[in-house]
């Protein structure tokens, strides 16, 4: 199969499976909702204060919730040895990686769409900067999380502890992306400071880690 066909078929298969069973998306949404509620119980904030910290809270909630979907990505393929079938199939493995990443990007994107209004309601948020900056930040930040998450998911699925290991590998690597995403979000919400620099940083981060991921994915999947 060609690169595009594998990509399309894998992506369609994953989406169909997920939207029928809703395993990952339901637990992810509920988990994120819990994080939002617990945070808003823990802090009692004025609108100005919430503008300052909401950016950090929303990204921490997304990071934690995304792990749920990322763990599902490859765990699903262990049943019936689908992962082994992928490994011997004469299809380009890079397209499998890209399909999984795009799939996770959609799931976390849906999560962002649900979480954002909740934050606006619970924290009485009103952005001072333009909203499209928030959209760009959420797209770039989302990709940064899922591209590394999908790759490390493929690593952690090959180890003894599986699900436990993914956040331990993913979080340290994600620190720079998280800092940039939080910075872009907070600067937009407060209308102070540059948004351009963190967004460019995130874009470069995305390009670099997508490239390394595509480059090393076959090595990791075929590791004996």
């Amino acid at each position, binding site marked *: 199969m060609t690169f595009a066909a594998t990509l399309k078929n894998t992506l369609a298969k994953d989406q169909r499976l997920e939207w029928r069973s809703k395993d990952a998306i339901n637990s992810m949404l509920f988990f994120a909702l819990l994080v939002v509620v617990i945070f808003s119980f823990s802090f009692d904030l004025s609108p100005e204060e919430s503008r300052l910290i909401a950016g950090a809270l929303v990204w921490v909630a997304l990071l934690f919730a995304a792990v749920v979907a990322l763990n599902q990505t490859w765990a699903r393929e262990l049943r019936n040895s689908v992962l082994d079938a992928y490994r011997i199939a004469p299809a380009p493995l890079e397209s499998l990686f890209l399909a999984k990443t795009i799939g996770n990007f959609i799931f976390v994107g849906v999560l962002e769409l649900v979480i954002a209004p909740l934050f606006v309601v619970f924290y009485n948020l009103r952005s001072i900067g333009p909203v499209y900056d928030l959209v760009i930040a959420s797209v770039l930040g989302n990709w940064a999380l899922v591209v590394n998450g999908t790759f490390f998911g493929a*690593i952690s699925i090959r180890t003894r502890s599986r699900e436990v290991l993914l956040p331990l590998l993913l979080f340290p*690597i994600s620190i720079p992306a998280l800092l940039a995403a939080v910075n872009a979000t907070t600067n937009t919400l407060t209308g102070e400071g540059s948004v351009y620099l963190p967004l460019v940083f995130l874009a470069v981060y995305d390009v*670099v880690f997508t490239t390394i991921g595509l480059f090393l994915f076959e*090595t990791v999947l075929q*590791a004996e």
Partner: protein
Amino acid sequence: MKSKFAVFALITFGLLTWGLYAAMIGAPTEATMGPVQRIFYYHVPCAWVMLLCFPANFLASVAYLAKRNPLFDAFAVSTAEVGVVFCTIVLIQGPIWAKPVWGIWWTWDARLTSTLVLWLIYVSYLILRKFSTGGPNPVLSASLAIFGCVDAAFVWGAIRWFRTQHPQPVFGSGPNSGIDPRMLHAFFINLAAFTCLGILLVWLRFMLEQARQKVEEAHAMKALASPAKVAR
């Protein structure tokens, strides 16, 4: 091999002793900071060994992925472990010095933060190695090492650009500003001594890892020879 190691260990031990004397007795007490400044003779050399180990780990990981020679993997794990040990020492020494001099244990200053994140990345590398005994672990950990090393560059930028800058603590006259030659002397002896200590530890760990690889291989061969015992 063993005699060379013993000779090198003796040299290292001698250098460390000389360094201890030079740092504690030979060098004069610093005027503003007092005796606590002497931690510099250990702090900087430890950071230096750490900065030698992590790039070595990256190169060994790339070499392993390219050649698949277990020697490179043994070298990668040795440098990562020794690097994490020295990074831990640096992170502990820092606050010990900072509290009396700056008045605070910790500040989210660029260098401190990036050292801490570097430590986190390499600890996650060691955790991955720990969790995946046998099987595909060298390839997986080598890939993680490459991600970690590229990430270190991003950490460096992110922390400088996106962390709110806290008030910078005032440094006392650093080692470069009109330093007493005896201080410089103590510093360079310790730098040499700790570089040797780092090499010695990596060497030791490397031999240990090679032995472990041989034992594992022997177990695998034995299991192949007598399939009945594999279940145990």
